[in-house]
């Protein structure tokens, strides 16, 4: 999957099949065809529920909004294979709880939104952001990653106004 962005830049996901790159991006998880439990990241094979012997995990979009379970902020550049920008700019990460799916998913937070801006229980919404940029076979390419951004009022309402 690739999406053309403005200025002749091509956008591709940094990992295939985990999230969409459209205007309202969402994570792609799996749901067990038999017991209905969810998994993320997407995968094939056995259902993780010990009471279920299904081998059929079906791709499914996950909720775009959830609430902060916890968060942090990296003050030092993580080691490879993270491709840290130079100079390194601190950034935040948040683990967000999705109510319907009953899972918590860890992700980066958009640049400029720091730990001091976050709080356990805060509503968040899925977006995408540039992880790194590289010329691949002569094509200027942005490798995109999903991020959790503080949700606007509309999104906050759709998760029941929890805070």
């Amino acid at each position: 999957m690739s999406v053309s962005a403005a200025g002749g830049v091509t956008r591709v996901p940094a990992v295939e099949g985990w999230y969409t790159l459209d205007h309202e991006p969402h994570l792609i998880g799996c749901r067990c065809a038999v017991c209905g439990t969810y998994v993320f990241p997407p995968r094939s094979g056995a259902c993780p529920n010990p009471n279920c012997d299904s081998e059929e995990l079906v791709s499914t979009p996950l909720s775009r909004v959830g609430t902060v379970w916890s968060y942090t902020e990296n003050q030092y550049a993580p080691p490879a294979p993270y491709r840290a920008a130079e100079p390194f700019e601190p950034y935040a990460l948040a683990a967000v709880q999705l109510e319907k799916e009953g899972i918590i998913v860890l992700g980066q937070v958009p640049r400029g939104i720091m730990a001091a801006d976050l709080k356990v229980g805060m509503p968040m919404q899925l977006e995408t952001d540039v992880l790194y940029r590289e010329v691949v076979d002569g094509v200027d390419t942005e490798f995109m990653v999903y991020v959790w951004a503080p949700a606007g009022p509309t999104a906050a309402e759709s998760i029941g106004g929890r805070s």
Partner: protein
Amino acid sequence: MSDRDLVVLGVGMHPWGKWGRDFTEYGMVAARAALKDAGIEWKDVEYVAGADTIRNGYPGFIAGSTFAQKLGWNGASISSNYAACASGAHSLQAARASILAGFCDVAMVIGADTTPKGFFAPVGGERKTDPDWLRFHLLGATNPVYFAMFARRRMDLYGATSEDFARVKVKNSRHGLNNPYARFRKENAIEDVLNSPIVSDPLRLLDICATSDGAAAMIVTSRAYAEKKLGSLNGVPRIRAVSTVTPTYPQTILELPDFATDSTAVVSPPARGFKDSLCWAAYEEAGMSPSDMNMAEVYDLSTALELDWYEHLGLCAPGEAEGLLRSGATAIGGRVPVNPSGGLSCFGEAIPAQAIAQVCELTWQLRGQAQGRQVEGAKAGITANQGLFGNGSSVIVSV
């Protein structure tokens, strides 16, 4: 004493540090020390349970035979175990199973490591299907990121402060001051911690444990063998329980190195989370309770994680760990000293040796040999640790 108790006949360690030498050098020092402490010869050992290191090539993956060969092939049976931070306890469990099954009477449990500088990074190469590789690549989710999220929850839910976390460091730095095996032996003040740079907010450099070289070994035996050798087992430390249980689905805490938790959509969370169940399985096996414990050695990968362990161990209720710490109960001289050795805070983590080192410390404490850090009158203690991929352990030792 129970027929299922194992006797700790000898323990030995190589000091923790950072020298980058061959891990077997450290291991041999620990092995010889444990044999000497036990008062037996290498040729008396019938089983070697080695805790593996995954950063030292083939010899590291087969630690049992590596040390059996280094000590000189004596025909002993062997096993080699890798279970992340719990590797040493899984090795103890293998030795214990062999002894309790009657296959042997005398076993050596050993682990040693040499570690790289800085953050633990994944093994090299591009592996887009390996979650451990991808968490670094997509998120920059280092180990401290996960520790920091646990710490942040304590702050937002229970009102913990950076000063509380610093108090854990101050306590452990005092405990480890006189421990000859500790790598960091310097007393820290609250200000030292608060003035150290933030690594992963809210955790600072001095809140997070380092990676170290080190080695630990012990000689464990059947009750019959020890009775024959020692006459009386009065005052001799015994392994009362070894818990190596795995999580029960669904696991609802975001643990290293995962991107996501299990789902609670169709199965409700278990009554006890993973770390609680590790400790409680040990209590149940020993027929003991938290109030029977005079001390604990826990995996303080971060200062805040030590506070989590107070609650997992049942030393206090959830949300009360900061109060327990501030009361002085978990310092030497208090009701239940935690990490009298100085903990990972003073040692740094030498993965395959660490769970064994925890048991070595309890052994010295129970014998009254923990000079400069003695928990007076200690009769029983518990260890706890947890590592990647559902590995963890808890061991109870008593006299």
